[in-house]
């Protein structure tokens, strides 16, 4: 097993990986930009190396600097987390060439599957159904416009190198097409260094269902069931759950089999996710393979009782999967809510800034994968994810109540967060009924604003805070000199 792993990431996922490494007695190296000097991952790792200025291209996306940090600290393996370089085949091959181990699939697999049109070709030849659309990407706006009218609107513009919704747009009619392509190309180029786009037919009332897969270097491939990730804003997931309310046992078996075929056809190794769109008819289509650990991996961990990061590391070290498909069972229901520094009442605008107060929810079945702390300044340079709130319960209804209870006791002050929005979704009829489609937010919550019923309570808290301030000073001094049991015991005899 490795003695030391470098984590080429930041925020909650870096912290998440560090924790498993610690349990495996593997030393950890964090890397950080100047904006993250006080990042939680820097504080939690055994060692931390500054790699550059805040701009991602000069720090977290800089392959040479990260490899240098690995060499300097003697790390044997690099875990990329998600985002940044996680799905960059050049990074994976640079790691391989440097004689280090990349905790993820081989660079060749990332290259094949990261090229979304190449992936569609692989899946088509393996008999996995794909969405109607282009099989070759292009940067030529005219070609895209022609293809779009061929497919018929609405179409989905996607980045060939895409992921996380970057460079992705729905175009309803020919008028906005050219302009949308230019902006999507610019976003894709910035996010992935590749501006090529392709089109897919946009399917209505679909659900986003993905299957977690694990594959070792010895040809064993299994799946760990599905995650339903239909609730998205800006094509980025915000709520995920497992199991999906839409899957019958037969459909689950069929999709699981397709996921394993997809992994086998691409000669996949390590943890990965096969994403499908599920149409109301029950027909499912291959969307893409995410060749990395997913943001929402904890819900699978909760229902299968497996630590996916641990298995990623075991697989990267060359070990065989210690179980087969028949050994994998799932139990209960898990939900994840992503806590973003965004204002949900203003189109989910980013809300960076200092965290003035931070208190995580606790209690049975509650897990927080966090990346911030009180006093931390949320930087403007990176993805606005602050952390993830995950709950597990014996069934969906109980899990929803548990999530609501946890969200209501999750206090973050200083930055706007998605928490009140998420609580309203948990309480909504469509969510309760499991009517979760990819346009859920546009359909049910397009003009969401926080309920004002509590504003009097906020006013009361304001006044009491003024009133209680002198009391507080004495409360603190009491804490400074707590009475010993001997002073408070009174007349008891021991």
């Amino acid at each position, binding site marked *: 097993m490795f003695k030391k792993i470098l984590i080429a990431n930041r925020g909650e996922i870096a912290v998440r990986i560090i924790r498993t490494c610690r349990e495996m007695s593997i030393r950890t190296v964090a890397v950080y930009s100047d904006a993250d000097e006080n990042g939680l991952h820097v504080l939690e790792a055994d060692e931390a190396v500054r790699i550059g200025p805040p701009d991602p291209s000069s720090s977290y996306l800089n392959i040479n600097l990260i490899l240098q940090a690995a060499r300097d600290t003697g790390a044997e393996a690099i875990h990329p987390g998600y985002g940044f370089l996680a799905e960059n085949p050049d990074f994976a091959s640079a790691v391989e060439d440097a004689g280090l181990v990349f905790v993820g699939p081989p660079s060749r697999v990332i290259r094949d599957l990261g090229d979304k049109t190449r992936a569609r070709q692989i899946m088509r030849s393996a008999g996995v159904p794909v969405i109607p659309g282009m099989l070759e990407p292009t940067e030529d706006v005219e070609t895209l416009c022609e293809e779009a009218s061929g497919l018929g609107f609405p179409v989905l513009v996607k980045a060939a190198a895409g992921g996380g919704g970057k460079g992705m747009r729905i175009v309803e009619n020919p008028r906005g097409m050219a302009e949308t392509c230019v902006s999507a190309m610019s976003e894709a180029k910035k996010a992935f260094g590749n501006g090529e786009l392709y089109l897919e037919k946009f399917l209505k009332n679909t659900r986003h269902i993905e299957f977690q897969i694990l594959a070792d270097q010895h040809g064993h491939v299994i799946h760990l069931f599905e995650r339903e990730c239909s609730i998205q804003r800006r094509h980025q997931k915000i709520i995920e759950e497992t199991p999906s309310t839409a899957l019958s046992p037969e459909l689950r078996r069929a999709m699981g089999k397709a996921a394993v075929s997809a992994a086998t056809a691409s000669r996949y190794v390590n943890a990965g996710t096969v994403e499908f769109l599920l149409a109301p008819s029950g027909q499912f289509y291959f969307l893409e393979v995410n060749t990395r650990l997913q943001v929402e991996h904890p819900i699978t961990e909760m229902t299968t009782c497996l630590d996916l990061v641990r298995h990623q590391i075991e697989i990267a070290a060359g070990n065989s999967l210690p179980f087969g498909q028949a050994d994998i069972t799932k139990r209960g229901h898990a939900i994840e809510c992503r806590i973003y520094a965004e204002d949900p009442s203003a189109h989910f605008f980013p809300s960076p800034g200092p965290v*003035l107060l931070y208190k995580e929810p606790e209690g049975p079945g509650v897990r927080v994968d966090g990346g911030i702390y009180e006093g931390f300044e949320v930087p403007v340079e990176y993805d606005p994810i602050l952390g993830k709130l995950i709950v597990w319960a014996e069934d969906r209804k109980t899990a929803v109540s548990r999530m609501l209870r946890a969200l209501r006791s999750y206090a*973050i002050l200083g930055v706007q967060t998605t928490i009140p929005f998420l609580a309203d979704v948990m309480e909504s009829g469509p969510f309760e009924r499991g009517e979760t489609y990819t346009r859920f937010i546009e359909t049910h919550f397009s003009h969401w604003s926080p309920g004002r019923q509590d504003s009097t309570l906020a006013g009361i808290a304001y006044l009491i805070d003024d009133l209680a301030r002198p009391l507080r000073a004495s409360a603190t001094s009491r804490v400074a000199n707590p009475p010993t049991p001997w002073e408070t015991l009174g007349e008891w005899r021991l």
Partner: protein
Amino acid sequence: MKYNLLIDKETIPLEISPLEEKNLTEIRAGEVSHRVAYKAVSETHLHLVVDGRAVEAFVAKAGDTKHIFVEGRTFLVRDADQMVSSPSRTVSDDIPGDIMPPMPSVVARILVAEGDQVERGQGLVVVSAMKMETTLVAPYNGWVRKINTRAEAKVAPGDTLVEIEKEVGADG
């Protein structure tokens, strides 16, 4: 004692009167009167009992604003009577339009040059925050009088990035 509290965007008058008992008070909101018992648990944590119902509140102060968490919601609360009146940001008809970023961000691209004629809705500056790009557009037809920023500059709400002189007779 009477207060006018600005809670998010709404002003709410509240009146507070201490009661005989320690840590007990009465707060009137309009016609409704609330009996509030309280305890300061820590520097930021208040335990309130409002009309017999227990409420946990967390309060963090930043300048003249209190950030308050209560029952799963967060609020920005200020004392409206003590607010230093800040220069009005309302754009009246004859003031040049202020092009400001809606959040702390970094200037990605500047799409116009000083002296350019611009049309209402035309993109002027693209700012980027947390990997999301936003285009700031001209509020009306006119010409670019001044550009106060450059690519890659860090900017914040309140910074006027581009000054637009309004074309006479243009719709605002």
